[in-house]
């Protein structure tokens, strides 16, 4: 059926009940706002790169372990004792009886079970505890991604609820909620998190494997205020939009006004904010792990893998074993950067006004 015929057919109707869905074009794809956003998103190279980075990290962290397990049978906390002979060189100064100072070298050989170099079965070698680094990177990614998504989800739920209350009811509710937001926003984030983590790990009633949930709760507690502010601002802004007024004049119920008009139009901001927030949570989590206050040993976390390089524990790993800590750091950077690229791309795609 050609376009012209179709048009003629539709416009010749006088009885509108005879117009079919097909005539209206419903069975064709309609250019919905979502599609426009997707198009703009994929047009930007950076956002595509970001997406690729995040997909990579996801596959690496969630599919990777399955493959590694199937191929070599490596697990997260499996200890591999890879014996190898290594030269040990010791130097020292000593004062000889003749009064001169001599340098003293001693060469000996020892057998090391851990810190295996890169090999076919241990692509990135093993670490000081004999864990396979490559496998642990995957499990570390799982934890990081999981924590960040759950935390952002919780922050969004709390933020939307409280910000929504403030924005929708205004007056004293707004006053009260916003002061609470102010108070939480003034808490020093990292120090308080450290205190909380320390408290969590010192409370014996909390089993080690549950600590992570408390940790998530703690990070959420520090982060929800941003969402609440955004939601409140969005509601105040959208409420002035004429389509909200129109919904009111046409007598749409408050419930529908909120969920069909307000929420969908406030979503873009929330999605962008959440995407950008994911990276932030990953940084928080890895910092805590770095300080040994995050995911408890022997569970793998990117932060604690980097902590091996902490010079306060000796320079050996920092200097000689970059395979133990550099990949974890790179993965953090890739993940956080990926989320920033996607967030930025989404923001431009949702709101093309800023682009000229």
């Amino acid at each position: 059926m050609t376009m012209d015929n179709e048009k003629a057919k539709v416009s010749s109707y006088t009885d509108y009940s005879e117009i079919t869905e097909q005539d209206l074009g419903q069975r064709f794809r309609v250019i919905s706002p979502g599609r426009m956003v997707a198009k703009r998103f994929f047009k930007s190279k950076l956002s595509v790169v970001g997406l690729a980075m995040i997909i990579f990290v996801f596959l690496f962290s969630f599919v990777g372990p399955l493959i590694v397990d199937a191929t070599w049978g490596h697990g997260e906390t499996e200890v591999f004792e890879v014996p190898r002979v290594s030269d040990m060189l010791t130097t020292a100064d000593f004062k000889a009886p003749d009064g001169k100072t001599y340098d003293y070298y001693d060469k000996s050989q020892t057998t090391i079970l851990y810190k295996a170099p890169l090999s076919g079965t241990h692509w990135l070698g093993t670490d000081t505890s004999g864990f396979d680094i490559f496998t642990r990177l995957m499990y570390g990614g799982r934890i990081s991604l999981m924590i960040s998504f759950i935390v952002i989800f919780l922050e969004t739920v709390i933020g939307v609820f409280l910000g929504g209350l403030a924005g929708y009811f205004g007056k004293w509710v707004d006053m009260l909620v916003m002061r609470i937001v102010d108070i939480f926003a003034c808490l020093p984030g990292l120090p308080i998190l450290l205190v909380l983590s320390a408290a969590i790990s010192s409370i014996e009633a909390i089993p080690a494997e549950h600590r992570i949930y408390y940790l998530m709760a703690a990070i959420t507690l520090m982060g929800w205020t941003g969402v609440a502010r955004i939601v409140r601002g969005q509601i105040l802004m959208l409420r002035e939009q004429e389509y909200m007024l129109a919904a009111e004049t046409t007598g749409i119920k408050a419930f529908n006004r909120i969920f069909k008009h307000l929420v969908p139009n406030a979503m873009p901001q929330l999605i962008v904010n959440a995407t950008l927030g994911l990276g932030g949570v990953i940084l928080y989590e890895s910092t805590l792990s770095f300080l040994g206050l995050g995911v408890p040993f022997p569970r793998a976390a990117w932060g604690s893998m980097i902590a091996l390089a902490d010079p306060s524990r000796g320079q050996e790993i920092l200097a000689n074993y970059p395979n133990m800590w550099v990949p974890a750091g790179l993965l953090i950077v890739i993940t956080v950067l990926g989320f920033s690229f996607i967030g930025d791309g989404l923001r431009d795609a949702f709101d093309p006004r800023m682009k000229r």
Partner: protein
Amino acid sequence: MWKYFLRRIALSLLILLGVSALIYLLTMLMPADYIDNQTSAAVQNGSMTLEDVQRLKELYGLADKSFTGIVKSYAAWLRSTMSGDLGFSFLYGRPVTDVLADYIWISFMIAFLSYIFQIIIGIPMGIKAAANQYSGYDYTVSVFAMAGTALPSFFLSALLMNVLSIKWGIFPLQGLVTATKIFPADAHFQILLDKVWHLILPITVLTVLNVGGTMRFTRTNMLEVLNSDYIRTARAKGLSEQVVTYKHAFRNTMIPLVTSLSGMLPGLFGGAMITETVFAIPGIGYMALRATRQGDIPFIMGYNMFLSILTVLGMLISDVMYMVVDPRVKLS
């Protein structure tokens, strides 16, 4: 005008009150025997008596967990905090305020220098990126800025240490002074030089981490300004692109910039916890992290209160600066 200030200050005090209550509550989550465990060493070596420990518990609401007990001990704690007494650190064996006063300056030095670098590098880069939107320069700078904000501080520190300290040996690894060197007591300049040499890496790390934010902020605001009508007017007057960008546009971008940058100032006293720790610089952040690990409750609470005060102060300053910089804000 004064009325506005008074209101603003009253609000800040209210927020601080809320923050203090919250910090107090969070500390109370700790188990009751926590202090016993943490102070056992101090008690054993005789630097604390059991009475001291009991007083500590009372002050921090760990002794009497009934509601009235908590309220009472909170009131007592608040009273002493307000009078400037942040408590007695059992880790450092001195009043918290003394410890803060001793170690704050080195932290401030590091933070302030990196803040200056952040401004002198970030702002011009942001302006240039905005003036050439979508150019190669813009993309490169933006990607690097984002990469900077994506780097965990400890990872960047480790990378720099690995290359610059260990491989090339240009900079010292950790600490504030070279332990192996002994300077004559009057060689102030050499001592200073030695310290500066130790501070270069931490300052670099902080600058790299923060410069991206400043740059992006400048760029976004500059873009907004460059799109406005008065910039077209300025061009229509026959002003050169230099004058348009650096006088007409930048003066407007200054408003949000000054507002946010001045708000950061008090925070500079707070110290950079992770960076100081990794480089073992005895700053306030380093001390605080040690205290946290050791469960030195008085120090932790004092430090957190101090940080909150700095944050509130920052908000106040940025509010005031906004009124100073933007001629449109005139309060009757």
